[in-house]
């Protein structure tokens, strides 16, 4: 389990990184950020890049800051930075709670938010967060800078609309208004394992009624997705256990789960009901 040979390039600036990527993309040149998924792939020789462009030395990409109504997460911001509170307010708390369930601490010390988005594992917490919260993904190449909505960015398990010569320089997540309630839950076999199903719920309550509900489900289909039917069930209703159960049933009915040997379609369907229910229940506490 030794990686195949490659040439190494330590980029100092974003411009240098995208220039290197432009040069080597067609020879399977790849970016390395945290490497916590990429290096295992290389160890198994499932990935065998000829050139590896390291962006860890680009100081600008370590930026984690709120600008206006948006949290901007640079490409080498680690999971651990979000775990310890990436920003004040509801969004910071939400991301912190989710971060704690990503793999294990030594992985979180190295792995990055943007890397996880680019890796596009169906069960990744950050992909679910990005889709549910309407994040934007900034992709830069020597050709252009594109700002992509998370909705539509993921095209399948481990695949995205990112071009081979594009570098994700940051992700932007809209802040959540004060008073926004949220809940997250996932089910995995052991602590730190990839989720067999995960759900993220956010909403606000105005005059005792739910407004702006968002329900996202990950680890179930090849890409995380929001469940419109469940959100519709919540919108305008008073939050209570019966309502949450009904929304969870809508969610379970709305997914077409993967069957990957780890969990069958039927089991995943039942897990969706469980995680959506629990995510919503948690929003009350």
């Amino acid at each position, binding site marked *: 389990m030794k990686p*195949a040979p490659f040439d190494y390039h330590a980029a100092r600036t974003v411009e240098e990184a995208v220039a290197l990527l432009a040069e080597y993309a067609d020879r399977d040149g790849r970016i390395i950020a945290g490497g916590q998924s990429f290096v295992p792939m290389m160890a198994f020789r499932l990935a065998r890049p000829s050139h590896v462009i390291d962006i860890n030395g680009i100081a600008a990409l370590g930026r984690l800051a709120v600008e206006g109504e948006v949290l901007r997460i640079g490409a080498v911001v680690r999971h651990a930075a979000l775990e310890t509170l990436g920003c004040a307010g509801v969004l910071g708390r939400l991301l912190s709670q989710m971060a704690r369930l990503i793999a294990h601490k030594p992985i979180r010390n190295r792995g990055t938010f943007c890397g996880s988005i680019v890796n596009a594992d169906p069960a990744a917490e950050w992909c679910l967060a990005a889709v549910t919260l309407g994040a934007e993904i900034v992709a830069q190449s020597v050709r252009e800078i594109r700002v992509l909505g998370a909705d539509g960015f993921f095209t399948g398990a481990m695949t995205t609309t990112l071009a081979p010569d594009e570098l994700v320089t940051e992700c932007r997540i809209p802040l959540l208004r004060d008073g926004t309630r949220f809940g997250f839950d996932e089910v995995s076999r052991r602590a730190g394992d990839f989720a067999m199903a995960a759900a993220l719920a956010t909403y606000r309550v105005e005059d005792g009624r739910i407004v702006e509900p968002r329900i996202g489900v990950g680890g179930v289909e090849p890409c995380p997705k929001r469940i419109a039917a469940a959100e519709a069930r919540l919108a305008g209703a008073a939050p209570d256990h019966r309502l949450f159960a009904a929304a969870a049933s809508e969610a379970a009915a709305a997914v077409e789960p993967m069957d990957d040997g780890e969990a069958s379609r039927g089991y995943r369907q039942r897990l969706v*009901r*469980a995680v959506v229910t*629990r995510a919503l229940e948690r929003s009350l506490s």
Partner: protein
Amino acid sequence: MTGASVTAFEKGKTRVFGRSVSRIEDLPLVTGRGRYVADLDFPRQIHMRVVRSEEAHGRIVAIRLDAARAVPGVVAVWTHADIAGLPPIDFRDPAAEALKPYRQPLLAKGVVRYVGEPVAVVLAESPYVAEDAAELVAVEVEALPPLLDAAAPPAAFAPGLSTEALELSQEYGDVAAAFREAHCIVEAELSIGRHSGVPMECRGAIGRYDAAYDVLELWGAAKVPHRNREALARFFGRPSSSVQLHECHVGGGFGIRGELYPEDFLVCAASMRLGCPVKWIEDRREHLIAANHSRQQHHRVRAAVDAEGRILALEDAIFLDQGAYVRTHGARVLDLTLAMLPGPYRVPAFRAVGHFRLTNKTPAATYRAPGRYEGTFVRERLLDAIAARLGLDGVAIRRRNLIASNEMPYARQLTANGHPIILDSGDYAGLLRAALEAFGWEETEARLRERRAAGEFVGAGLSFFLEKSGQGPSDSALVSVDSGGFVEVVTGGASLGQGFETAMAQICAETLGVDYRRVRVVHGQTDRIRFGIGAHASRATVMTGGAVHAAASEVRRKALAQASVLLQAPADELDIVEGRVVRRDAPMGASISLGELSRASGPGRDGAGNGMPGLYSESWFHTEGMAFPYGVHIAVVRVDRATGQVAVERYFVATDVGRAVNPMMVEGQIAGGVVQGLGGALYEEFRYDAAGQPLSATFAAYLMPTMREAPKVEVLIAEDAPSPNNPLGIKGVGEGGCTGAGAAIASAIDAAIGRPGAVTALPATPERVLSLLEAARR
């Protein structure tokens, strides 16, 4: 219960035997100075990489090596054609002739039979280069249909050879009559998943041939170095005195490590042929598809019982999934399953038939508590089913059937490895009583009932296990005292991390009257002692410990005889305290140290006499019978009603170990065993897809418990029934922590979901448990 021969170390009067002293092994291991085989390098060594089959079953059409051979740094690339003169890997012990055609060749010969089977090897200057070149070896295979279910009808292994390699059976009593006359017959169909030991250190081996002295060395030996020396010598047609095996630090064994595998022979063959040391370090993916799997069995079992729940007869049909070849153990796991199935219970009539069947998966062999983990699950599940049928509780049904202490020794009319099973000693009912009390069974049950009434899915389950240990017949040890008073114990034992050095040092120190920290213990080095049993089947502490005790006793006798002259007192009035011989009646008076005695009696000294000079002895320990430890496992689990996930809230083990050499280490063995047993009960499984592709070939897919999943195991160590079969009364403790875990967890899940007998298959994955739960609520 105490046999007349059990007089060695009187309880409560020992200095270091029976005490929880810290381990002499630990210092290098906590400072990063241990030396595992991967840490060892020899000048001019090269590295081996194995090219493995990617098909579960198929005919090899062609193997193309040119590209691999052309990689700079590659020394050689071999396929079966290059080693065609070497035989397949033989069985360690004589095995049935019928098994011979199923032995594994070092490299696949015309046919591949599992994903992971060695097909070729690349020998190169570095592990990275070896792996680069191995990727370029193109193996063209014409796929054949894989056989993946041992309970399905057998197919052809080769022309004229069935995939059912062997049928084993054992029986006694009138089974047919018992079933005819039974009050009722209780049946179950049960299965245990494929899982294994998976030590944290992968396997590794360095072959080194010293042409100057014509000695072949194998470094990285484990478990049974002396037995493997004989096997390697036979394999290569060499004198065994020219084959030396060397153990390094070993990162866990659990039965699977230290058997001879193709790679061990290949590094030896390559080192002799290429004239340089050859190092092979397994990677984790290889380990999960190439090292021995274990456990996978399917049972159709039934019991004839009377109206009170007493077992009249037991009958079982077993299908063992052996995987693609029969390895060094032959059919031992199946034999042990049959032999130990009745466990601690009176079973007047018994018949079990075992079907030893090959499939297209990784070959299987022993893993901690081989045959007993499986058999205990089956038997205890059956006991629970009998209890449910007759409306008894799980404790009552066991009490009614346990063999009584006054029936000991109890001759079970079965054999294990050809040795008759004669249960040596035990107060099974007494330990069950003590366990329930220490655990707080009644109060716990009451509390669990309340919680269930409040809607929780919680329950407690228990299992009773019987283990075997200390199988003889003989082992030896050398004990010597140097002129500085330091003691060396040379054994043919082996250390896999279990604390062997400390245990031997404690036995020697207690016998001799020295500080255990002044005792150095040698193990796993075939050039230091002629014979050795290694460390397996919970034998080392009993057998090697017995030999160390015998040798240290002889050294003590010599020391006292010499000192008796110098101190002018009869030897039986002398004692050895902290390495000095003193008069019992005047411990602060005149004394002489063991170092001085050693110096005075050394070779070349006047007065050494006609006997063996020095404070030195090589002694043997012989025993006919085995020591049978036993115990109770109790688990409390909580089932998540929405996901089927099982959390173990509490885990308790009571076990009688005869005498505990070091209670801290005994607890460590039990706690570690439980978590491994729990792994097989809830998480670990080598899964395959329909094409025979392994689905559990990474640590992200083969799920071993972490600290989050592991309960804090509570342990009650009992010493009610020392074994009469060895002078220290010891029973081995390596396996009992594992043995009862599958059974106890299954029983607890049943209780939690309120459906007796629900769990019929391990591992009880969340998906399986959720469907049981939903069925129970319907």
